[in-house]
Structures are given as structure tokens and as C-alpha cells.
């Protein structure tokens, strides 16, 4: 039981990821596949950001910003910034993949005017 309490962020991200993963490969409608892809990538972003968290730490912006005295900075006072940087990249990758995927869906709809996978397979033959 203690295992679940102390590591609940990993449980949440795995459940979310499996929902997205199932939608991606299980669903027939193309747009639903894309929704699944979005959930799948968001779950990974949740995982990364949750690894950076430190108990009792503030946001990674140092107080001595506007020229006041820069006293000793302890790493424990600030949240780990690296996962946040990596996830900025992952968010941009998610947006770009989504943009290209929507472009593909518009091409498909223009050609077959349906978005069901099995109807497209028949029309294509």
C-alpha cells in the first residue's frame, strides 16, 4: 500500500498513457486516433515534469533577479529545471505532429470524404 501512496504520480501517468495508447491502435475513426495520440504524448509530459518535483521547493526563478544581493543559492530550494526544458521541446513536437496529422486528415477527407479507416481501405482498392 505504501508503494502506491508514495509513487502515485507514476500510476496516474501510466493510466493516462494506456488510455491514449488504446485509442491510438484500437479506434477506427482517424480523429479519435489523433485524440489518443494527444493523450499519449501528454501522459509522457506529465511523467517528465513529475520527476522534476522536489518537496518544499519553489519555482526555478532565482530571487536575486533585479539586482538585490544574491545570497547563497541552495539547489534544494528550487525545483529541478531540466525536465521542464525537455518538456517544452516535447510540447512543441506534439503540436507539430498534430498540425501535420490534421493536414493529412484534410487531404484524406478531400479525397475519400470519410474518416473511417475501413471505408477508406475499401475506397482505396
Amino acid at each position: 500500500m505504501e508503494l502506491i501512496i508514495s509513487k502515485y504520480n507514476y500510476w496516474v501517468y501510466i493510466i493516462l498513457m494506456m488510455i491514449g495508447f488504446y485509442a491510438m491502435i484500437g479506434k477506427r475513426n482517424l480523429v479519435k486516433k489523433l485524440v489518443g495520440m494527444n493523450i499519449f504524448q501528454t501522459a509522457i509530459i506529465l511523467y517528465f515534469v513529475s520527476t522534476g518535483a522536489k518537496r518544499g521547493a519553489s519555482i526555478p526563478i532565482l530571487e536575486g533577479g533585479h539586482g538585490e544581493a544574491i545570497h547563497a543559492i541552495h539547489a534544494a530550494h528550487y525545483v529541478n529545471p531540466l525536465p521542464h526544458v525537455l518538456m517544452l521541446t516535447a510540447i512543441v513536437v506534439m503540436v507539430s505532429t498534430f498540425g501535420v496529422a490534421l493536414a493529412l486528415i484534410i487531404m484524406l477527407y478531400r479525397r475519400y470524404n470519410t474518416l473511417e479507416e475501413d471505408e477508406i481501405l475499401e475506397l482505396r482498392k
Partner: protein
Amino acid sequence: MTPPFPILIILVPLITAFFIPIIGWWRRDLCYPLVIAALSVSALSSVFILHLVGEGGTIHYYLGSWDPPWGIEYVIDHLNAFMAIIVSAISLIVALSSKRSVERELPQKVVYFYCLFLLQVTGLLGIVVTGDMFNLYVFLEIASLAGYALIAIGEDGAPFASFNYMIYGTIGACFYLLSVGYLYVVTGSLNMADLSRILPDLYHSKVVLMAFAFFIVGVGLKMALFPLHVWLPDAYTYAPSAVSALVAPLMTKVGAYVLIRIVFTVFKPSFSIELIPGTAILSWVGAIAILFGCILALGQTDLKRMLAYVLIAEVGYIALGVGLANKAGLTGAILHILNDALMMACLFLVVGAILYKVGLRNIHQFTYLHRKMPITMAAFTIAALSVIGIPPTCGFFSKWYLVLGAIDANQWLFAVVLLVSSLLNAILFFRVIENVYFEPANAHGDRGHEEISIDEAPLSMLIPILIVTAGILSLGVLSGKIISSVIQFAVPAGL
């Protein structure tokens, strides 16, 4: 100040890709020469880097001059430089031959086609040269996104095939990112060299085990390893001919390089061989991939789809070579990356030339083709012999080392699989050659003597094909020298 060559390989095609939309708006026909110039600069600098690595050992290039675990680092050893040459040389050759087919298939969108073409090559070069796990994911995403778009502009089935490719490709890339996350949580660093130092005392933790498993699945999806290859045949068949000639030889080979880098450099051989049966699974998957690839290829009548299945079998060879995990097996795998890139480039360029000139895809309609396009068909025959593995061509030598590796690892079953696959390849390609060269029996009477004029593929397509065929033959002869000078050092230590 370390010489800027490692970054120059990536920077020149990248900045040219930014300038192409601007120049294309001003004067459209300037894009093609720009692409050729950019790729030749990166090809030259990668040759120069191999020369530097040959003399001075591994090159380390710190981006923004931050030392490794904090900043991003480019590590170039023999394997990287070897791969960088393959990627930039093959993409230069394919770019040379793409002019005519692109102008016919996509008349208005030549500018954006070349921009994405350069971005794809930059992504591939970025994957090959980097020494940072997350940076590899970013460039993997650039190459994949450009690939999805380039494939989707093909014939009728292309958008749906590209959509499927995108779904599988995104799952693969996300599994790779997840494993980088799993390693990050347990070690705290993203740099490959740093990881390989910290990981050894974590080999027994479950997190590292799962990270390794998802690395293999993620890279296997990108590489179209057998059970995960479902997206490849449709994607490469419906793609425009210039794109399939670029993507087929390079995308899977760069995936194979990432596999070798992860299995032997990030995870020490001691982990991936003894601790968990990682390489054993890989060799079995590779063997199955070879068999199924050849058998599925037998059932195809469309030449391009047949070549796509042969490509899956070739990826199986590389996975088998990696799975054997001994010196001869890995030498065969790395040599096979080079040979297969050349063979697939030649075959897909020939298919592109046939499609451009005659517009035929079905194998049974290839009668009298050897009279119409003698040089192209001669190149096709040489490439076919190389895929089968006939001595003078380069394909024989890589298969030879793979069989040697299989015997060293006394896995006689794999040696048998390799020989059977050569037989299957022979059946595959002689079926095509027979249609091309020998007149059908019943046609002797009426139009046997009617003269068929030679209308060869245009020069801009013919020269790249001839270059690649010359490459296949010359590398066959020189493979001894290549191994002794480059691959010998490229094989990871501790094998």
C-alpha cells in the same frame, strides 16, 4: 578551438533549408543547385571528419562550449563518421536524380519539396552525429516529420499510408522518449558517455531493464524490424519515386545505427549479452524478419512493393548481425548497413527511372525493357546480384561476415537462414530479370523482329544510377580495405 567540421555537416543543409523558401519565392529554378551545393559541402566535410577521426581518434565538440553532462556534446568516432558519409553521399546522389521526377510529379511545389528534403537529411545527419540522448530524439522527430509529409504527396494511397506511418512512428518516438525518461529518473544525466559510466552499477534495477526493453521496441518501430514493420510496405510503395529513393536506403539504416549505439555503447555489452538475453532476442527477431521479408516479397507483383519487403529482410540481416554480438557478426552488420544503403538506393532509383520513362510497375509488363532502357536494366541486374550475394558485388562480403559470425557463435540455424534467404532472393530477382531480358515464348512469331528504339532514362537520372552501381562493384572489391581501415575500429569494444 576544435575545428568546426562536426557542426558544419548539420549547419550547411539546415541554413540552406531556411533560405530555400525565400529564394524559391524570388527565383524557383535556383533551389535545385542550392540543394546540391549544400549536400556536397556536408558530404565533403563528413569525408574530412573520417580522415580526422582516422588520425586523431574520437572528436568531441561541445555545443555552446559547455562540458558534457551539462551541455550537449557531439561525439564522432569511426562508426559516426562512417554513417555520416553514407547518409550524406546517398542523399547527394538521390538529390541529383530527383530533378526530373519532382518537376513532373509536383510541378508547383518544388520549392517546399526541396526544403523538406533538406530538413529530412539534416534530421538524419543530426541523429547520426549527436552524443546526447534527448538531442537524438529532437532530430529523430525532424527526420520523421519531414518523412511523413514527403511520403504523403505521392499517388492515391499515399495520405492514408503516411497517416499510418505517423501513428506507428509517433508511438516509436514516444517509447524512445519514455526510455530516456526512465534512464533520466534513475541516473540524472542525458549524455550517452555519462550514462554508460553511471549505468553499470544500476544494471539490476527494474527501471533500467524496462528502459532497455522500450528502447528496443521504439527503435524497432522506427527501423521497421519484423513484427513492427506493418507501416513500411504501404508508405514506401505509394511515396513519390524521389522520396522513396531517399527514405528507403537511409531511414531504416539510421534506425539500425541507433540500435547499435544503444545496445553496445550506452548499455555495455556485458549488460545486453549476459545479464539479459537482449542480443539473443534480437538475433531471433532478425532471423524471422529475413525469412518473412523474403517470403512476403515473393507474393508481390508490384516491383516497388516487392523491394519494400526485401528492405524488411535487409533490416533483418542487420538485426541478426547485431544479435550475434561477436566481432565477425557486428562487422558484417556495419558493412551491411553500407552495402544495403547502396543496393536499395540503386534499386529504388532504377524503379524511379522506369516509372518516369515507361510508367510501368507490374513485373509482368516489363517485356522488352532491356531494349528500351539497356543501361538502367544492367544496373538493376548488378544490384539484384548484390542483394542475392554474388561475389564481385558488395552484398556478398557482408553476408560472408554474417555467416562467419553465425558460425563463430555456433548458431548453425542462423547460417542456414542466411543461405536460404540468398536462395529466396535469387528466385525473387530472377523472376524480374527473366521478364525483362528473355522475350516471352509465344511472342516470337509476330513482333519478335520489330525494332524497339532505345529511349533511355534522362541523363540526370542515369548518372546517379551509374555512380551507385559503380559504388556497388568497387566497394565489393575494396571491402577488405574498408574493414581494415574503418569498420575494425567501429566495432564497439568488449565484444
